[in-house]
């Protein structure tokens, strides 16, 4: 996934493991920033939903990580990176309904195996790269300009 355009903006949001009280703050900030940049509301919404699901995944499953927001004239790119534990079977993790989340997480309305599929649903381009013991990077791209337009 390469991008030749100069970034208009690049921001990082730290996400702490099991910090459920703060979960969603990064996604809210992503939406605010995109609005301030004048991004169309339906695109900002898609990016914010992807960011929220990615943020919840970091809070629920990871040892902690960060979400990097990058915006240029053509696309919004979100990269959620963590330092582990990694996903043994990403194909299985992408299946709707598959989840390893706890009952505590389910009581908050998450953990039903919809997180990664929702990120993909909101994205024009989606990648997941994970190595057990090293970590996971999920990249979601929302195009701003349609090709040829």
């Amino acid at each position, binding site marked *: 996934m390469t991008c030749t355009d100069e970034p208009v903006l690049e921001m990082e949001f730290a996400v702490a493991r099991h910090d459920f*009280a703060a*979960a*969603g703050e990064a996604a809210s900030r992503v939406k605010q920033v995109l609005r301030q940049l004048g991004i169309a509301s*339906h695109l900002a919404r898609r990016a914010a939903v992807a960011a*929220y699901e990615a943020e919840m995944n970091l809070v629920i499953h990871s040892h902690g990580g960060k979400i990097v927001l990058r915006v240029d004239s053509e696309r919004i790119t979100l990269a959620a990176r963590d330092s582990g534990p990694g996903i043994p079977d990403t194909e299985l993790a992408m299946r709707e309904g598959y989840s390893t989340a706890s009952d505590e997480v389910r009581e908050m309305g998450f953990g039903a195996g919809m997180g990664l599929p929702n990120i993909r649903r*909101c994205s024009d381009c989606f990648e997941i790269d994970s190595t057990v013991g090293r970590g996971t990077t999920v990249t979601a791209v929302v195009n701003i300009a349609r090709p040829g337009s």
Partner: protein
Amino acid sequence: MPLMEAKPVKLEDIAKLIDADVLSGEDKLSTLDVCTACGADLMSDVLAFCHERTLLLTGLASPQVVRSAEVAGLSGIVFVRGKKPGEDVLELAEMLGIPLLATDFPMFEACGMLYAAGIGGTYQLSQTDRGSTGNASGETRP
């Protein structure tokens, strides 16, 4: 069964219809029109399938419900079956400007009352949108 034609209902009228207390967003009672609503306890479903400006009815009272509403651009939240959110949820809703209502009616009955009053559903809206710019998830895709 043919789908009803959705019509806007003011938030204050929604509160009366389901005998709801207003916990947050009193200033929007007479100005906010609601055309669609959805009932869900799974926030990932809300994020995936609810359109913007939809009213969410839910039995969950966690801060994540308010965050989901903000991120998805929902018009407000109704807590059903007597659920009362904590101070942290109320403060977050005030900060983000999300109206909160609370009713003792259970989910099925609260949704039924609103549907009978003319509030449409997200599936109904997606059928209306089909052929224009939206898809079933309410998202516009290139």
